[in-house]
């Protein structure tokens, strides 16, 4: 052990001069072996809360994270800072890679793992062999069915923690209502714990909502807004087609801006390039779906524009949280048209099975049972039954809970199955109503005639801080006439000969 202060360690390992709000308090408690519930706003450096303890403590830190892409990005980012003893166990690995990795786990200090992988006995056994000192549940709101991204796999984490010989537990979330916080605590059995809850509102973000008649009008408004200023901008869309179309349109109309689109349907190599161009300030405007931005830590995003809204307030707050990580003034703008209501409704429906799907699934399982067969891999079931991933995950979870499934084996009992059918259709109904209620909450905000800031954060906390910047359109912010100012961005098409020389540093020798 050395005598460096936590601040010195932070500087030494991560290059930051000071802790942000809440980080030091959480790290100190964790290092003293206390369980901690930490609610920190998006973009405030949640990951440092376990990365620094992981570097400093004797044992291994295991981080459960639901987003594989986020995991991969974080591992890359950590390796880039020089911390190499970090890895991720997730479904991206081939069987061979997985086997190899599992045999070398002792080499790592920080191990990210997806919740599904913790359902795998071999993975758990290999992890059990290590000395796990800290168990981190990232995006802990996923454990609550009142959270915005309920993941059934998260409910099994308490058992896993027990198997790991009761390490210190750190549950982290960026957006959790008081109700969800209670759920996290009880589900993870964190009876003796410290809670560090920080308000989610940021003093450097202004809000604005504008209602329009038709989606096409939004594009014109965005052109107007961005045309005379330099401001790195993210624009969120709920469909790939719209992201592409808007990107094409905006690059035509705003010829001095560098615009691109990003969505989950692109080739991996192109996704990596676009992401890095945006980070590297080679792009001014990115038209994206929610697939973008998970691991993105770009500091100078000035506008987060919602061309389409997500299905709930929590997601909206997270997306807005990508703006202004440098602490400077940034603006959230929502463009709303009446036809927008339709998209989220469709999205919610696609996440839940219909009664017919449930009936079909039960018939399918019964046929397997009669044939003496076991449940095939998830992808095959989904394809056979034409279910989306979330739909099948939902049904499967409840089948396990009600003992229709025991691991991959099917357990049949006529009366129980009948009961189950009724139960599940009710359950679907409840979930649908719940999700629609969440969507309505966001809609109420969009339609409200009151301070945007207060309204947005009101479900999560009692009060908001006084912002350092103009508050919102309702409070008198004249956002349409606001400008971040111009900056010369030179767009010129270089001759390829010159570009090649530049890449290969061929000019440098003449300097």
């Amino acid at each position, binding site marked *: 052990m050395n005598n460096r202060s936590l601040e010195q360690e932070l500087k030494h390992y991560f290059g930051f001069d000071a802790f942000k709000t809440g980080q030091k308090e959480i790290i100190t408690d964790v290092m003293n072996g206390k369980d901690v519930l930490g609610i920190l706003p998006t973009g405030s450096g949640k990951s440092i809360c376990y990365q620094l303890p992981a570097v400093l403590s004797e044992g291994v830190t295991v981080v459960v994270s639901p987003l594989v892409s986020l995991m991969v990005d974080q591992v890359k980012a950590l390796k880039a800072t020089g911390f190499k003893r970090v890895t991720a166990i997730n479904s991206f690995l081939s069987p061979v890679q997985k086997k190899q990795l599992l045999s070398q786990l002792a080499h790592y200090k920080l191990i990210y793992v997806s919740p599904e992988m913790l359902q795998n006995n071999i993975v758990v056994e290999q992890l059990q062999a290590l000395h796990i000192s800290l168990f981190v549940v990232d995006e802990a709101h996923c454990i609550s069915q009142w959270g915005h991204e309920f993941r059934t796999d998260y409910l099994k984490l308490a058992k896993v923690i027990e198997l790991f010989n009761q390490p210190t537990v750190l549950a982290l979330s960026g957006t959790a209502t008081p109700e969800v916080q209670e759920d996290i605590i009880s589900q993870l059995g964190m009876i003796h714990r410290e809670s560090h809850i920080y308000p989610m509102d940021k003093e450097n973000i202004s809000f604005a909502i504008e209602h329009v008649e038709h989606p096409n009008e939004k594009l014109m408004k965005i052109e107007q807004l961005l045309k005379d200023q330099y401001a790195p901008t993210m624009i969120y869309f709920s469909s790939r087609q719209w992201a592409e179309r808007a990107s094409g349109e905006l690059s035509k109309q705003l010829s001095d801006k560098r615009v691109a689109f990003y969505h989950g349907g692109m080739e991996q190599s192109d996704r*990596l390039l676009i992401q890095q161009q945006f980070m590297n300030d080679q792009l001014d405007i990115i038209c994206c779906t929610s697939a973008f931005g998970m691991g993105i830590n770009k500091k100078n995003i000035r506008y987060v524009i919602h061309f389409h809204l997500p299905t709930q307030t929590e997601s909206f707050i997270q997306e807005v949280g990508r703006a202004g990580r440098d602490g400077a003034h940034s603006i959230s703008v929502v463009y709303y048209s009446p036809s927008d209501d339709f998209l989220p409704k469709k999205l919610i429906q696609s996440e839940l099975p219909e009664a017919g799907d449930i009936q079909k699934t039960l018939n399918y399982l019964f046929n397997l049972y009669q044939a003496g067969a076991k449940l095939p891999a998830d992808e095959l079931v989904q394809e056979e039954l034409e279910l989306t991933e979330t739909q099948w995950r939902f049904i499967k979870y409840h089948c396990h809970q009600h003992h229709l499934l025991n691991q991959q084996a099917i357990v049949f009992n006529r009366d129980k199955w009948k009961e189950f059918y009724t139960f599940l259709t009710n359950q679907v109904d409840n979930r649908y109503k719940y999700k629609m209620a969440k969507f309505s909450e966001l809609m109420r905000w969009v339609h409200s005639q009151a301070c945007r800031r207060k309204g947005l954060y009101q479900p999560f906390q009692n009060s908001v801080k006084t912002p350092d910047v103009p508050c919102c359109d309702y409070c008198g912010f004249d956002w349409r006439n606001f400008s971040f100012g111009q900056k010369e961005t030179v767009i010129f098409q270089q001759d*390829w000969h010159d570009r090649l020389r530049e890449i290969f540093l061929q000019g440098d020798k003449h300097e």
Partner: protein
Amino acid sequence: MDMVQDKRGMSVFEYILLRCINNINGERTTAGIYNLLVGKRSSQTLQDAHAYQLTEFFAIYKSLERTDLMKVINQLIEERKIIITDEDERPRLTAYGSDQLERLSDEWGPLYFNGIKLHEKVTVFEERFYLYIQTITNMKKGKKHFIPITDRPDILKWVKLSYNVNKATLMDHINAIYKELYSLLISVNEKEAALFTYRLTGAGMIGLSKQQLSDMFHLPLHNVHLLMQHLLHQIYQAVEKNPGNYPALSVFIEESKANRLITNSAQKTYLLIKQGMDLETISERRRLKMSTIHDHIVEMALVQSDFPVYLFVSEQEIEEISQVIDELQTNKLKNIYDALQGKFDYFFIRLVQARMQHQKSEAKV
């Protein structure tokens, strides 16, 4: 840029499709062409590639979507260059289409694709090259913390090793690659050279996506992909043919001592497999016992780390067999065979063993 080159850029996908349709001559559906271009691993596709002399186009467009191909096919129908009759769904050239093909053929001269032989090698070459250039230029500029533009662990490992070998004389190394690359690029089509250059990532200059290249050079997206592939095939073959002229670039070619080690007889068997022939037919044709054919295949799997064992065993079977081998920690076939309760015959077990041996030696590097 002159007119001829612009036309080339606009027409490459059309040219390739017309060539395919011409050679197939109404004997296969559009699905057959799709399978060829994406490089579907089926004996039917391999066989077609050979039978219709289209091996050069095998797997040159792995990311092509079926629906996108249909759009282009429909476009060709509208332009009356091809027809598809409803009953057999098989495209044929019209007289106008034949003229068009001839014109394009004159315009293009020879194409340099060699898909069947190079598609995997070119991908490795390409990914190594992009990441390596990103690495050495960033390191030269003292930027140690950059995020690699590829995710493939094998490529990352290779680049790391190669960087370590050259880091003492980094600038000389950069200059050498630049000179060799430049000499190649000025000898090829101007547009292809430009696309390739703008795709490269250097220190603080991230390369462009295909969509961006398409916008910048006013080319259809398909043609951006194909022109870049064409250039890569050309560069690869130039370097492979004359490694002495391109010492710095030749290191990006995947090292394969494999073929020299395989017996002639096994080589012949391999060639027939590559042409899509099944094992029974090979055994008949070559008047060899099946067990000998099996020996050949295992021999090749042992020598070539990239031997396609999945032509014979499924991923799941590999997993099942390798698990037992790992558990038993033995190479004794009989023990493994017994532990699997006779579910797989010796040939499968030997193949999986051969594959595992490569993975072990890779892990050691």
